[in-house]
């Protein structure tokens, strides 16, 4: 069963053509990594999947909701589609535990006891149970991102979108976050779409790699064969530059 389907999707910002003829099908349970130079449209593509960006043409179906239909209720779609941001976007007015418990309480009306148990369990999983009552301003970037992942998991999503989850982190924090993402993507049967510049990580977790350039999907291949040797020259060029340092 497919989780995400793009059919000839076009996205414009005014006259700027941000996404060109996107055709893409991602099945349930796949872990897909999206790579490409900055400005290639990776983040824009990921943000269209939960409706943070609108599309102007074509059809986009996510978890059986048609995002090209203006009548589609995005709030319902987003209950099943989590998102992890580059800059975490933790609620600054709530402590770590509340960050995780708020949406299950007010969106899915989970009983308080179950909600709290789940939140503590998730915090343990990301190694932050001791920080439950700290404010986001009191924890490091890497810890914030792990809380953000726990917050996303608390809604028990079918699909998680990661928009450059480690790009704003200090180098030493990156690994902890990647380990958590790896754990989440491998144990769960969840579908993941990950924008990243971490090639080692991409190689480890991805079933499939999509390479974008200038708003187009240039290459879409199984992870192994892509990292062995990309088919297009543009992707080869990109990979050689990124891996060389």
């Amino acid at each position: 069963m497919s989780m995400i389907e793009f059919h000839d999707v076009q996205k414009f910002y005014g006259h700027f053509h941000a996404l060109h003829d996107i055709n893409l099908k991602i099945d349930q349970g796949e872990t897909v990594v999206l790579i490409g130079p900055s400005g290639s449209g990776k983040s824009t593509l990921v943000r269209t999947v939960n409706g943070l960006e609108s599309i102007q043409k074509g059809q986009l179906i996510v978890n059986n909701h048609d995002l090209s239909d203006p009548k589609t209720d995005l709030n319902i779609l987003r209950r099943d589609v989590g998102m992890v941001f580059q800059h975490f976007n933790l609620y600054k007015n709530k402590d770590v535990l509340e960050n995780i418990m708020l949406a299950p309480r007010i969106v899915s009306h989970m009983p308080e006891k179950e909600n709290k148990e789940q939140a503590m369990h998730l915090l343990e999983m990301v190694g932050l149970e001791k920080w439950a009552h700290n404010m986001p301003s009191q924890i490091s970037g890497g810890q914030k991102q792990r809380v953000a992942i726990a917050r996303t998991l608390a809604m028990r999503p079918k699909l998680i979108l990661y928009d450059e989850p480690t790009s704003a982190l200090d180098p030493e924090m990156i690994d902890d976050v990647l380990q958590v993402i790896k754990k989440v993507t491998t144990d769960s049967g969840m579908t993941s779409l990950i924008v990243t510049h971490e090639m080692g990580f991409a190689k480890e977790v991805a079933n499939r790699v999509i390479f974008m350039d200038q708003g187009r999907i240039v290459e879409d291949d199984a992870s192994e064969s892509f990292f062995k040797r990309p088919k297009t020259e543009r992707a080869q060029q990109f990979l050689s530059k990124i891996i060389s340092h």
Partner: protein
Amino acid sequence: MINIFSHFSSQLLVGLGWTVLSSVIALFFSLIIGTIFAIMEIVPNKVLRTIGRAYVEIFRNIPLLVITMFFYLVIPMYVVKINGFTAGTIGLSLYTSAFIAETVRSGIQSVAGGQMEGARSTGMTYWQAMRYIILPQAFKIVIPPLGNQFVNLVKNSSVLAFVAGFDLMYQANSIASTTFDTINSYLVVGVLYLIITLPLSYYMQHLEKKLA
């Protein structure tokens, strides 16, 4: 000055009472109205946004005295009889609410962005995100500028004097015209205004430090 105060203390205290009462009522309503219009100014709906914008621009750019006179003279003539105090307090509330709307709007916009996207991505509705995430943070940010608005509000309440609102300024005029001691009459009233505004000002500074 002492003379004026001891002779007219009861009259001055009445004035002080009306000034404080009018300020408190106007503060309450301008905060509510201002917040409503601040939100209207930024909602996705275009019609609401235009109404919000229009309200703010109109009430912010007409002199307070003109607004107050309108409620004092025009409303009783065509709509409903209201006294000077009520007319003045309505004028004051509407005028101040336009400034509060601008202040709160800028606070909301400085919080929104990432915080809004974070909240919406968990399935919260726009209004849930506003209520639980955006507004609590926005109000914290706008406390210092709101404090200035409150101090201005107290001072602006002197507009009641023009519509027989029995406030401090009204009493000053009346004492000055009976005693002909204009200097001391207005000095006393100036001091009485300071007694309200200075503690308010200090309290706001304290609050700002505490929240920072």
